[in-house]
């Protein structure tokens, strides 16, 4: 295969400037080429929609052995379905995914909808509230904690743990180093947790039942519960919070949702496309591979830039415009292929519940300037003060 000249960039995708607003930088990388070597990060970035789909489909060339951007975390994640390739991946994935299919989630869907309606109703009657700290964060914490069966002190810590779990996937920068203690608390809790600590009949409790039946090794229970907690919080909060942020930023688009709440699914897909909860994710190139005309040497760290691919004009027309009725069901936010987000069914149920309740209760609203805390991996609002609400 013909190889083209190596395209390199000095952009540091984990710098404050890029994390504050990745889109101009990601657009620059995407237009430089389908594969760009980032000298400051020592990694190969896959930048365009189709290339990202192809890389994620090709798990032989793009291994999940290094999904994080530092060795300590890659070592810590070794043996989990997230960081394992076929054939070992298959059984781990099956165990993780079993309780998370839409079929399995059907029984808790109504309960989640009721929780969302009640919380949104209460906040709207208050007249002003913070869409992140009063709504999305407590809601996701309650849903995920109840589902896994987490009680007591762990429940108080779970949001802090979830945030740290994503920060530590970055390179060894200040953010990663500062997040290691909290991420370590979560690893420690998961290593110590017993079935008696979890509410009977919940998903977490069921993992220990599966071990009793001999379906999984008893020592892997903690690792599976770690994946539910670590992956279930921060990105879900990010994606639902971002969607409400988009409603505030584009009131004409939000008006279409109020007019037709059935657009909630499309709205959520468009928010995932416009601003994915994780801007990028890691892969490991084990052996020399020529990909999109570029020779990537074996032993290299790669990254798929979801946030760049989701705004690729080669795939989406007018990609920098938020269109609530676009329904981009094929967007890259949840990844693609054998490692596609295992919890996307639950995330969608949570998002549908909140966004539908919001559209039914809030005709119009006004929000102050949103705030964000920078995270190496997740792109999320930390505060979105809703200062005026016109109820339905």
């Amino acid at each position, binding site marked *: 295969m013909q190889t083209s000249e190596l395209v390199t960039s000095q952009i540091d995708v984990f710098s404050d400037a890029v994390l504050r607003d990745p889109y101009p930088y990601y657009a620059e990388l995407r237009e430089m080429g389908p594969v760009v070597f980032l000298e400051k990060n020592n990694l190969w970035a896959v930048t365009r929609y189709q290339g990202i789909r192809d890389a994620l*489909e090709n798990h032989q060339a793009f291994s999940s052995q290094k999904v994080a951007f530092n060795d300590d975390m890659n070592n810590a994640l070794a043996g989990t379905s997230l960081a394992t390739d076929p054939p070992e991946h298959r059984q781990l994935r099956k165990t993780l*995914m079993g309780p998370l*299919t*839409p*079929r399995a989630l*059907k029984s808790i869907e109504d309960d989640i909808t009721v929780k969302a309606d009640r919380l949104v109703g209460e906040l709207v009657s208050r007249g002003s509230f913070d869409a992140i700290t009063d709504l999305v964060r407590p809601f996701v914490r309650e849903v995920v904690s109840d589902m896994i069966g987490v009680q007591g002190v762990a429940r108080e810590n779970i949001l802090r743990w979830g945030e740290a779990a994503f920060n530590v996937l970055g390179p060894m920068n200040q953010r990663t180093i500062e997040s290691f203690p909290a991420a370590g608390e979560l690893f420690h809790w998961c290593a110590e947790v017993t079935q008696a600590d979890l509410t009977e009949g919940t998903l977490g409790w069921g993992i220990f039942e599966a071990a009793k039946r001999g379906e999984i090794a008893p020592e892997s229970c903690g690792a599976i519960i770690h994946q539910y907690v670590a992956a279930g919080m921060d990105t879900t909060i990010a994606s639902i919070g971002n969607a409400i942020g988009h409603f505030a930023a584009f009131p004409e688009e939000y008006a279409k949702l109020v007019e037709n709440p059935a657009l909630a*699914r499309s709205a959520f897909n468009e928010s995932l496309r416009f601003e994915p909860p994780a801007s990028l994710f890691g892969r490991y190139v084990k052996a020399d591979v020529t990909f999109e005309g570029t020779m990537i040497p074996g032993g290299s760290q790669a990254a798929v830039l979801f946030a760049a691919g989701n705004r690729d004009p080669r795939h989406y027309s007018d990609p920098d415009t938020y269109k609530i009725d676009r*329904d981009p*069901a*094929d967007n890259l936010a*949840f*990844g*693609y*292929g*054998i490692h*596609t*987000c295992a919890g*996307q*069914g639950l995330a969608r149920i949570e998002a549908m519940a909140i966004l539908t309740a919001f559209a039914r209760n809030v005709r119009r609203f006004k929000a102050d300037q949103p705030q964000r805390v920078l995270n190496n991996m997740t792109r999320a609002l930390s505060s979105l003060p809703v200062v005026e609400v016109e109820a339905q």
Partner: protein
Amino acid sequence: MSASTPRATLVIDRERCEGHCQCVLVAPDLLDLDDTGAVVITVPDVTDRIDLARKAVQACPAIALSIAPGDTWG
């Protein structure tokens, strides 16, 4: 239809399908859920609905859906 018309068939790979149900949401005219909640193809011959079929294929996060030439009976 005449025998010479090229047919297109929607095919599901059961080994890959994880039940994310995105295909059913995108193309409810072609796919549905059965009583057990498993995805089933209700209109396998998608020759006349090729754009919708492609949308369903594109929406599957698990790469479990594809369009094959020919028909399921041939």
